[in-house]
């Protein structure tokens, strides 16, 4: 049996490796000239890598930790001790720990409200949540305007959602937010570094996951071959690329939902994978490189949170065992869209100036790197696709239902750890099992 896998991200490559292990022939067709999709490495000094895409994981990410062990990759703690810097209501402020200097009562009001809706959602099938229609029909922005009374709660919610899911509150439904928070292990788990979803990074970079998976698959992986069409008949599926045709008994589409719909499916699937309101998560990652992690010597963790962009938060991502110090800046949500539209020189200037205001004791960075996920034609949503108002009710029931011989994977098809590397890997295992089961006499 031959299986055509569309997309060499974590989901596609996990599925491909598992299918090969089960004895199938596999061809992986990848649009870009590299594997990895939303994981990507950036070498900031010889042998010193940082993550331009996905970076963090925690112990509940069991499929990912198993894959790391299989591929002989190690983790490194993401936590850095020291004080944080905040530019929220007033200019720079230094505080121990990561908690923002806003009214604690206001933050409690916000977390209460989030907890309330997170609890309501049915995580395995959010579209079957009691009251799903109401929760899916309203944006987070409108809900927050009604539910949050405290100005500090209203100030912080967009920053929190930007950090958690790169979401603009005006574009995402309450049901999707609640589902996402629940799917990832709840607000506390998602928010925490130590003991939470940001406990570790992958030593040497998350991109190595896909590079090693692809190395194991060898010539089965073909780069620079976007799949334009998938034609099904009774005997199989034909994938059409600019270079030719590849035939399989089954196909796995392991790409984000908007891109799955961009493929010309014949016959067309009974339901779309996305709708006009399915939004892209919006993120730009900036890396500021210093001769060493100078802030650590000053009792600072490198963590900062700002109400004004572009750098809504910064974090110490210095490569373990290397010399360079790296501050990663996150630009997310509506701010990412604005920032991504600026010319390169303006982007650099704004980021460097903001770093200087946040950390006046640091010299200017020696290097600057910017990764714009907003304009990546083969991602269309980072960290992940955001389901807009009405989407879960329309798209949920068909999330994993195969369309004949075409099967769906990708982090957006996983109700567990949706949007994360963990969700992508779990979807790869699920789809490989689905095909194997179909082929078992």
């Amino acid at each position, binding site marked *: 049996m031959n299986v055509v896998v569309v997309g060499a991200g974590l989901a596609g490559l996990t599925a491909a490796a598992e299918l090969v292990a089960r004895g199938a022939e596999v061809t992986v067709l990848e649009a870009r000239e590299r594997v990895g999709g939303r994981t990507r490495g950036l070498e900031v000094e010889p042998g010193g890598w940082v993550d331009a895409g996905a970076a963090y994981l925690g112990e509940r990410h069991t499929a990912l930790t198993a894959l790391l062990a299989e591929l002989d990759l190690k983790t490194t703690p993401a936590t850095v001790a020291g004080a944080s810097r905040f530019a929220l209501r007033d200019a720079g402020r230094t505080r121990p720990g990561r*908690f923002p200097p806003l009214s604690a*009562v206001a*933050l409690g009001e916000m*977390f209460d409200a989030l907890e309330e809706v997170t609890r309501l959602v049915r995580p395995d099938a959010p579209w079957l949540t009691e009251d799903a229609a109401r929760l899916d029909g309203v944006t987070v922005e409108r809900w927050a305007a009604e539910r949050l009374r405290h100005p500090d709660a209203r100030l912080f919610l967009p920053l929190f959602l930007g950090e958690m899911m790169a979401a603009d509150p005006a574009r995402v439904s309450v049901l999707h937010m609640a589902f996402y928070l629940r799917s990832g292990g709840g607000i*506390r788990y998602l928010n925490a570094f130590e003991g939470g979803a940001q406990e570790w990074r992958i030593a040497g970079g998350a991109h190595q996951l896909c590079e090693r998976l692809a190395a194991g698959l060898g010539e089965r992986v073909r780069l620079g071959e976007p799949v334009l069409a998938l034609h099904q008949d009774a005997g199989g599926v034909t994938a059409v690329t600019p270079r030719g045709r590849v035939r399989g008994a089954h196909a796995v589409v392991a790409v984000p939902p908007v891109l799955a719909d961009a493929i010309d499916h014949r016959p067309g699937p009974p339901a779309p994978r996305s709708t006009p309101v399915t939004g892209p998560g919006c993120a730009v990652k900036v890396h500021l490189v210093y001769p060493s992690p100078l802030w650590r010597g000053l009792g600072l963790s490198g963590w900062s949170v700002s109400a004004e962009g572009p750098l809504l938060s910064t974090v110490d991502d210095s490569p373990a065992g290397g010399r360079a110090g790296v501050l990663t800046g996150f630009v997310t949500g509506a701010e990412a869209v604005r920032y991504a539209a600026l010319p390169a020189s303006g982007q650099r200037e704004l980021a460097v100036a903001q770093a200087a205001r946040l950390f006046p004791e640091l010299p200017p960075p020696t290097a600057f790197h910017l990764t714009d996920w907003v304009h990546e034609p083969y991602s269309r949503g980072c960290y992940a696709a955001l389901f807009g108002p009405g989407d879960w009710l329309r798209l949920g029931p068909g999330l994993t239902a195969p369309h004949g011989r075409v099967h769906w994977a990708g982090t957006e098809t996983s109700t567990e750890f949706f949007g994360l590397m963990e969700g992508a890997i779990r979807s790869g295992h699920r789809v490989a099992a689905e095909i194997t089961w179909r082929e078992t006499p």
Partner: protein
Amino acid sequence: MNVDAVSAVFREVLEISEINADSDFFVMGGDSLLATRVLSAVARASGVELEFDDLLDAPTPGALSKKIAGAA
């Protein structure tokens, strides 16, 4: 808010039943995120808006109820 009312808030936020007047919020599994939820519950029930440092300073239902009475 009396000790029992504050204990009830601790129980709800921490999702555990073994809370008495001397239970330390942070020892019983509380963190800064959950602390804000205690403080918002206190504000709703008593009208008193405390800060995070107040809970660090008075981490038990006994001590916190005194602080609330003092601030009211």
